[in-house]
C-alpha cells in the first residue's frame, strides 16, 4: 500500500519505495534517510525544531507528509556546512553563543537562514517576530537574535 517517491535531499537524488502515505516528512528524514540532525520537539507544530528547507522555503517537517515532498528539493541541517566549513548562520550561532543544549538549534538555523535572506539590515523586532514559531527553552533568545543579525550582515 506504500507509494514510491523521489526527492533531492541535500543535493543527492533519492528514490524510496513503499512509503506509507501517512509517514511524516520528519520521520522519513530521520528514520528512512538516517539524517537525525532534524529534531522533533513537539506534536503540534509549535516548536520548530524540525524546520528544514523544502523548495527554498523553511517548513516544519512534522507538518508535511513525506509523499508531499515527492519531487522536491529538501535541505536539512546536514546539508548546510560544506566540508566542515560552517555557513554564516552556523558560525554566528557559535560566535554569539546562540545555543546551549543544542536541541532547537538545527531548526533555529534553518529558520534563521530563510528569515534573514535578502534582509541584511533586519531589525531585532523583525527577527523576534519571525522566530515566533521556533521555541528555545535555554537561551531566552537573546543570543539567537544577536547571531541572526550578525549572519544577516555576513550573508549580504
Amino acid at each position, binding site marked *: 500500500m506504500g507509494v514510491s517517491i523521489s526527492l533531492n535531499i541535500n543535493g543527492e537524488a533519492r528514490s524510496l519505495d513503499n512509503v506509507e502515505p*501517512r509517514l511524516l516528512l520528519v520521520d522519513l528524514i530521520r528514520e528512512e534517510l538516517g539524517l537525525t540532525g532534524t529534531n522533533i520537539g*513537539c506534536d503540534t507544530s*509549535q516548536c520548530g525544531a524540525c524546520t528544514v528547507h523544502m523548495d527554498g522555503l523553511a517548513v516544519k517537517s512534522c507538518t508535511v507528509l513525506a509523499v508531499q515532498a515527492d519531487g522536491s528539493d529538501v535541505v536539512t541541517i546536514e546539508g548546510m556546512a560544506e566540508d566542515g566549513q560552517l555557513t554564516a548562520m552556523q558560525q554566528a550561532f557559535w560566535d554569539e553563543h546562540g545555543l546551549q543544549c543544542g536541541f532547537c538549534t538545527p531548526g533555529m538555523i534553518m529558520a534563521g537562514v530563510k528569515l534573514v535572506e535578502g534582509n541584511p539590515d533586519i531589525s531585532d523586532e523583525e527577527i523576534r517576530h519571525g522566530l515566533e514559531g521556533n521555541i528555545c527553552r535555554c537561551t531566552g*533568545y537573546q543570543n539567537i537574535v544577536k547571531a541572526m543579525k550578525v549572519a544577516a550582515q555576513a550573508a549580504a
Partner: protein
Amino acid sequence: MAKFVGKSFKRVEDPRFLQGQGKYVSNLQRPGMAYVAIARSPHAHADIKGIDASAALELDGVVAVFTGQDLIDGGVGQLPCGWVVPDCKIPERWPVVPDRARHVGDAVAVVVADNPYVAEDALELIEVDYEPLPVSMGARATTEYRAQQLHAEIPNNTAYSWALGDEDGMRRAFAEAAHVVELDLINQRLIPNAMEPRACMAEWDDTMEEMTVWTTSQNPHPIRLLLSGFTLGIPENKLRVISPDVGGGFGSKIFHYPEEIIVPWVARAINRPAKWVATRSESFMTDSQGRDHVTNVRMAMDATGTITGLHVQTWADQGAYLSTFAPLIPTALSITLFSGLYKIPGIWGEMKGTLTNTVPVDAYRGAGRPEASYLLERIVEKGAQKMGMDPIAFRRHNLIPADEFPYQTPVAFQYDSGNYQGLFDKLEEISGYGDLREEQKAKRAEGKLWGVGVSGCIEASGPAPSAVAGSLGSAVGFWESGTVRVHPTGKVTALTGSHAHGQGHETTFAQILADELNIPLEDIEVVHGDTGRVPFGMGTYGSRSAAVGGSALVRSATRVREKMTKIAAHQMESRPEDVYFDDETGNIRVQGATDEGMSFFEVALAAYTAHDLPPDIEPGLEETAFFDPSNFTFPNSAHIAVVSIDRETGEVTLEKYFGVDDVGNVINPLIVDGQLVGGVAQGVGQALWEHGIYGEDGQLLTGSMMDYAMPRADRFPQIETDRIETPSPTNPLGVKGAGEMGTIAGTVTVANAVVDALAPLGVDHVEMPFTAERIWQTIQAHS
C-alpha cells in the same frame, strides 16, 4: 595569572550541534531494534478491571504487550524516593500500574513493535476496562477530611509535615511588632518542557548478561544505582548507563522514571534492543512538574521598618506519588532560604507535602528557591508599601551588611559571602533607577499603568555537604568525582561525574584544567555522562557543577601537577620546590636554570616509560579526586523589571529588564551570561504566561504547546545583565552557582512590577500568571 579562567571562549561542544550531529538518545539506533510505546491512563483516578490486548497482538509488526503485573512478575521493583524527611510516608509506585491509575498519564500497558507507527497503532487497539474513581485536587484542599484518599496507607493525603526555624522568636516578633503584613499566594504548577522529550534505549547482551541503557538523564550514575538496587535488579557491574547529549533538563531529567525501567526490562524480555521516545504529549503528562505551592505568609516589622519576624505556612502539591527528590524541594531547599538577603531574627516555616491526582512534582529550575524568593520578595514588597518606603530603600534598610559574613540565618544555612549593598548600587546604576521612577510618575500622570518591580534574591547552590544532606533526609551523598588522565603523549582526558545538558562543561572544565596544567585548551577532552567511562558521580542539578565537579577536577589536577613536579625534578636533578610550570613556554623548568627544561609531553612520557622515576613515585599519570563541599554556595541577585499594562485589554508588556548577580568568580563570562539571561526568560515565563492547569476532574488541560504558553522570542526586550564578584570561600575556584539565579529572580521581579503598575488602582496582589484575562479582570474589579 589565569590564561583561561575568567575569559570568554566559544564552546568546544558547539560544532557538533551546529551541524546536526548531536548524539541525543532519540537519534541512536541499534541493529534489530524494537520500538516501545506506552498505553497511559486517560483518567486521573481509576481502578483497572482488566486489559484486553488480543487485537493489538494480532496486528502485523507487534512483538509483545506487557501489563504492570507482567513487569512485577518479571521482577521489577517500586520506584523509591531518595529524600525522606522524618515521618515521611512514601506511596507505593510501580513503573506500570498493576491495578489503579492515579494521574492522567500513569503507565498502564507496554506495547513493543517493529516500527514506531505500528506501536502507536497497537496502543489504539488495547482495551482497558477502567472504573473511574473520584479525584482529589488542590495542594490544600486535598488534605480536607472529605477528600478522596489517594493511598490507603497515607491519611489525609499528607505525605509529610516539616518545619524549620525559631518558632518562639517568630511569636515574640509578632507580639512586639509595630506593623504586620500578610499575603495569601499561589506559586502555580509549571511544566518544565526541556526541548528534547525524554527517551530511553536499551540493549541486553545475553551472553555476557550485561545491560546498556541510554537515557536522557542529568545524572546517569544515580540512575544506574536506582536501577540496580531497586527497580531492575541488574548488578551495577553489569549495567552501563549512558546519557550522551541531553537536550535540556531544568531538573526534569534528574529523576528516575518508569520508562528507564520498562525499556531495559523489555529489551531483556524479548532479547532485542528496544527504544522509547516520548511524544511531547507524553512529556506533559509524565515529566515531573514544578512548583505548585499554596502559601500564607506574614511578616512583622518594628516602627522603623526593620523586619523582625516571618511566619510561612505552605501546602506543597507533590502529585500522585513522591518523585525521586520531591520532599527535598519544599523543605531543605525552600524554608532554608526564607531569610533572603535580610537580617530577620524570628523565622518559622511550616510545610506540608500533599498528594493529589496529578503528575508528580519535583525539582524544576530553582527548585524550592524560586518558591522561597517569591513569597519573601512579595511580602517584602508589601512591607515597603506599608512603611511608605521606596522598595530599594526598604530592602537596603534590612540587608545583611557585607562585614557580617559568614552569616548564620535562623533557618539552618550559613551564607558564605556577599556584598548585598553593592548589588543594589550596581543595579541602581545600570538601570538608572531614579530616572525610572521619574518616568513612572510621568506615565502615571498620563493615566498609564506602568510598573517598576524590584527584587533581591538568594540561592543556595552547589549541593551539598554530604553529612548535612544525610541529616536532612537524603539517601545519597552529594560530592562529585573528577579524574584527570594525562596520556603518554601529553594529551588529557578529564572525566567528570557532573553532566552537561546545555551548560558547556566541555569548555569550562577544559578552561579550568588548561590553567591548572598549563597546557592548551585543545589538548583537553572532557568526558561525562557514561558510567562505563566515568567514576561514580552525582550529576548536575542545583547549580553544582562548577563548585563541586569543577573543584574535584582542580583537586585531581593539583595531584597530577605535584607528581609531574616530582618526576621533572628527579629527571632534571633538581629539588621539587625549585621546579615550576612556565606560563610562557608551557615547559616545566627549574628556577634559575638557563635551559628550556622539559616539555609537558616529555614529563608525561617519562611517567609512562618509568625508566627513571623517583623511588617513591608509581608509573602512570592519572589522578581521581572526590570533592565533598564544606558548605553550599550562596549566589545572590538584585533585579529590576519594567512593565506596561494595556488598560483596555489587560495585556502586560515587559519593557525593560536589568539584573545584577553575584555568582562568585566567573569561569567563562559568555556562558555565565547565557545562563543568567536564559534563566531570567524562564522566570519571566512563570510570571507572565506559564501555568500547568488541571480541571476539577484531574484532566490536564494544558497538555500540549498549543495550550501551555511557552515563552517566545517576540515577548522579550533585551535583558541587561551585570555582575559583582565576591568569591565563595567554600571551593578552590571561588565560584557560586550560575544556572538558576536568573529563574529565581525573574519571576518575582516581574510580579512586583505588575503589582506596582496596578498599585494606583489599589491592587496589592495578583496571582500568576499575569495573562491579559486575569489582569483585565483585576482592573475591572478595582475600577
